[in-house]
């Protein structure tokens, strides 16, 4: 018995030692901040932040822990929660069971939340860094007056493939229907993204409202189902890095993260075109700590913070201080910032009327249950 206790104590000791060691190695870099974060009255309050997974520099591998820096700076405690699709996020916001202070939905979802009166206007007196946003990403269709949203990242969907498993460099989404890769294809586990690939292959508008179009895409996905290994969202990281699957459509920035762990992975924007998206920061109507949320938006726009995030997440940044920064390592990454002549054909998602939405939701379940 004594032996076991001794063993346990030793393990604890070793653990605490190693923690101390890594603690010593932590380099605290003084942040250069433009905004004012002197908010003693917010000290001790909490901010419920609802974000995509893997979507903020978190301190791993020597990166900046953005949330921790903000907490240290302001004394506000940040609760992180994560979602893996716009639809999941929407269900939580709409369900009204929980209140989040800050969310990062994509364009079409912002349009929907706005139309359903679930967002509140931002307080630009707090968001003094807004002028750093590239004018390209202001006044967009989902928020023409920039009242409700500040862009966080922009990106496009592309095709990721494992060059040891795919012989030729693919140039078309049709490879997702190629029987040769049966059981080696991953696809999106959310209706809008999954349908969009079939829509592009069928030459449809991504925002079609005709039932026949949706029926055709659903059939196309049912046809694809036997070839699919699994429906994934962020599970795609592990699967592609491990070499579990040959082909996966996913967001361009995430490919760069995956490639760091598996150099065999390659990326292409298929010729038929791709979905382009803007993920923006918004404050829900029922937010409880609105001032802290506005402050955090401003903090995320800070050149130092935005740069750390851009380096860590690997998505294209809408922040001019990042794009024009000499030290930004992804500055010339053509996947994120393609030259004009290489720019793929792109389409945005728009929000749909509730009937169309209900219709494609039903079709999506049909596909999943088939």
């Amino acid at each position, binding site marked *: 018995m004594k032996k076991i206790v001794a063993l346990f104590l030793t393990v604890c000791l070793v653990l605490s030692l190693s*923690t101390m060691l890594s603690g010593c190695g932590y380099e605290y870099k003084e942040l250069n901040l433009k905004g004012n974060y002197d908010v003693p009255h917010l000290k001790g309050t909490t901010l419920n932040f609802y974000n995509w997974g893997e979507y903020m520099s978190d301190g791993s591998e020597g990166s900046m822990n953005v949330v921790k820096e903000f907490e240290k700076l302001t004394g506000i405690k940040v609760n992180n929660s994560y979602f893996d699709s716009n639809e999941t996020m929407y269900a939580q916001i709409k369900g009204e069971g929980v209140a989040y202070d800050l969310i990062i939905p994509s364009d079409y979802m912002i349009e929907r939340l706005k139309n359903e009166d679930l967002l509140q206007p931002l307080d630009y007196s707090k968001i003094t860094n807004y002028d750093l946003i590239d004018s390209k990403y202001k006044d967009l269709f989902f928020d023409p007056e920039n009242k409700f949203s500040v862009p966080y990242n922009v990106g496009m969907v592309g095709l990721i493939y494992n060059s040891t498993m795919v012989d030729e460099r693919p140039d078309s989404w049709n490879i997702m229907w190629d029987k040769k890769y049966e059981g080696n294809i991953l696809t999106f586990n959310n209706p809008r993204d999954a349908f969009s690939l079939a829509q592009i292959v069928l030459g449809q508008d991504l925002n079609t409202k005709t039932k026949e179009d949706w029926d055709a895409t659903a059939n196309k996905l049912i046809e694809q189902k036997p070839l699919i290994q699994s429906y994934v969202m962020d599970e795609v*990281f*592990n699967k592609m890095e491990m070499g579990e699957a040959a082909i996966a459509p996913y967001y361009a920035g995430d490919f760069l993260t995956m490639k760091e762990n598996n150099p065999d992975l390659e990326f292409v924007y298929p010729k038929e075109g791709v979905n382009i998206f803007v993920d923006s920061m918004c404050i829900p109507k029922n937010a409880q700590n609105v001032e802290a949320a506005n402050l955090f938006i401003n903090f995320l726009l800070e050149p130092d913070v935005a740069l750390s995030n851009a380096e860590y997440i690997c998505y294209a940044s809408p922040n001019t201080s990042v794009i024009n920064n000499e030290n930004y390592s992804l500055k010339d990454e053509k996947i994120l910032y393609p030259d004009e002549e290489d720019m793929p054909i792109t389409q945005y998602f728009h929000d749909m009327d509730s009937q169309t939405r209900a219709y494609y939701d039903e079709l999506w379940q049909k596909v999943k249950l088939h």
Partner: protein
Amino acid sequence: MKTLSRLYIALILIFLYAPLAVMVIFSFNASNSTSLFAGFSLRWYAELFESEATLSALKNTFILAVLSSVIATVLGTVAAVGILGYKRKWTKSAVMSATNIPMMNPDIVTGVSMMLLFVFIGKFLSLKTSLGFTTVLIAHITFNLPYVILSVMPKLRQMDFHLPEAAADLGCTPFKAFFKVVLPNISSGIVTGFIMAFTLSLDDFVISYFTTGPDFQTLPILIYTMTKKRVTPDMYALSSLIFLSVLVLLILFNVSQSKSNKRSHKN
């Protein structure tokens, strides 16, 4: 026959422990993969102890388990004593059927039904947020209660009913008689119920998943979010530590029990 049966038992144990062995081995992985072993390292344990999210989830899980099991034990024990005194058979069977529901019902239905109630109340009171610590605590107490009642009930039935009466005759107030006479007689049932409630609460994912909010994340909820993102071995490190502590606890428990058994044999 004997070797064959031993072999069979060994095989099943291997089946039960293989995934746990995988988990422990990969928690020491030097790389961030959960499938390729790249050498021994303690880095995931170190990262674990630095992660505030993990530590606060650990704390929350324990707070929730302790509070919910203590409240359920008190409420459940008192209820069991009362239920035993029901004169009408149908009231007794009605209350017992209601008690059985959370045990029989699949977790997902219990979770969903409570969520609907909480959200409804929240909207009714026009609260900004309805799901959080309070709701998940209520949910845990609710699903813990039947286990407490059903462990206390048999002990109460076995008890000699004349004892509290005798105590009352000797001048005890009913309240005092309960603590002096009834409680010691049913304590083993109470302890069993409490331990059951505590472990159920500690391990619950599904019901918490539907009834908690962003302010109050428990360990199972955190693990769920972790497996939805890109998975790194820190999750395995966390589980290995939990496994180790459970193992130590169980061994301590068994040792102390066998000691007290020996002592009672001597007496």
